[in-house]
């Protein structure tokens, strides 16, 4: 069985370490905040200018001056701080943010990522994605293994316009967890009940399979 988006978020949350500063992109990555393991403190960065993002406010307590990068109303946690947009990307560029989780339309087996533009469709812009992928020291991509047409999103080379080159370190899909290495996608874990053959068949880029591949475990 492929895992759902909440399980993807749950599995990524296990990559968090105590004291991490983390930037979560829009979509599935945002859900990671719901699964931060007990006993681990992480500080969420929102690139519009906040460290220490908290949950959504209670109804009636929304503040239009307090939003996240997805323009959603949010709250702050004790010890949070605000800053301008240059400092926000400055701390990303300088490698202070430990982990960035974002979605993608395509990822190549060399770590290139495409997630901002589809030729022929209305282009809305890259927002902060190009800055994040060019600078973050550890990038995990969370996405579906195939597109709605059933075509692999894990490719030898991206076909869509790139957001960044050789930057993705890890990919988690609804089928598999993989590291990106010099040899390609190194298979680390399978979704429960998903075979290596199925992952192989749905991965267009180079897939490296070494030994027994364990299944992901969900509590």
């Amino acid at each position, binding site marked *: 069985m492929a895992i759902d988006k909440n399980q993807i978020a749950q599995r990524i949350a296990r990559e968090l370490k105590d004291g991490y500063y983390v930037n979560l992109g829009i979509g599935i990555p945002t859900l990671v905040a719901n699964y931060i393991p007990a006993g681990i403190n992480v500080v969420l960065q929102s690139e*519009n*200018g906040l460290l220490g993002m908290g949950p959504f406010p209670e109804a009636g307590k929304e503040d*239009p*001056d307090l939003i996240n990068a997805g323009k*959603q109303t949010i709250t702050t946690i004790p010890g949070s701080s605000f800053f*301008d947009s*240059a400092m926000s990307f400055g701390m990303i560029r300088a490698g202070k943010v430990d982990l960035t989780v974002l979605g993608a339309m395509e990822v190549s087996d060399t770590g290139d990522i495409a997630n901002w533009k589809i030729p022929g469709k209305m282009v809305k812009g*890259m927002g902060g994605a*190009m800055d994040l992928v060019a600078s973050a020291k550890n990038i995990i991509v969370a996405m579906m293994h195939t597109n709605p047409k059933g075509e692999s999103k894990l490719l030898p080379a991206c076909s869509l316009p790139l957001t960044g080159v050789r930057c993705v370190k890890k990919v988690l899909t609804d089928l598999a967890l993989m590291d990106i290495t010099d040899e390609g996608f190194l298979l680390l874990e399978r979704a429960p009940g998903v075979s290596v053959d199925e992952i192989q068949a749905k991965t267009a880029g180079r897939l490296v399979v070494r030994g027994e591949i364990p299944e992901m475990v969900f509590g």
Partner: protein
Amino acid sequence: MNKICTGAEEAIRDIPDGAVLMLGGFGLCGIPENCISALVKKRVTGLTCISNNAGVDDFGIGLMLMQQQVKKMISSYVGENAEFERQLLSGELEVELIPQGTLATRCMAAGYGMPAIFTPAGVGTEVATGKETRRFNGKDYLLEYAFEADFAIVKAWKGDTMGNLIYKDTARNFNPLMAMAGKITIAEVEELVPAGELDPNMIHTPGIYVHRIFQGKDYEKRIEQRTVLSKK
């Protein structure tokens, strides 16, 4: 020294057709609502607007787009409005999309008197086309130039008669950067106080950068994505 204006109409009085403007804000958060209304009323046209976003159909810069006052948008993320898309597809509107951090840093460079910056954002992508690249410590960087803007229009929470500004929460975003970058900077504030009432330790934008200031009124502060905790 008198920086104080009676309101937005006076503050934007000499913005001509074809001017290059910076407008603060992220989405609809921290946008200079009063000055945008005044620009809409004044009907200046042919504007180039440097702003992270382009508003929505009936609010923010979207109001200026509705009247076709904007010739060119320089933004990182746009298209939350139908009229924007129509003008873009028909060729009436020119759009330059640049990475958000690059946008912020090009404003910052202008305010710091630096002609250009190097950033890794966009290396190896179409953003790098035609740009000078340089390698530092084994990594490639793009040369990006400081912006030049005739007017920077920002929104702050509190300001004083010397032009010192304090922003609130994430409504800060691009505002302090743009405030530093305009040849003429106009600040609208929710609360304008006499010099001496703001703690100098708490100032985000020193008054030297601000040429005109006024107390805004009737702030709508529209929320783009209202999200709340679901009741358990």
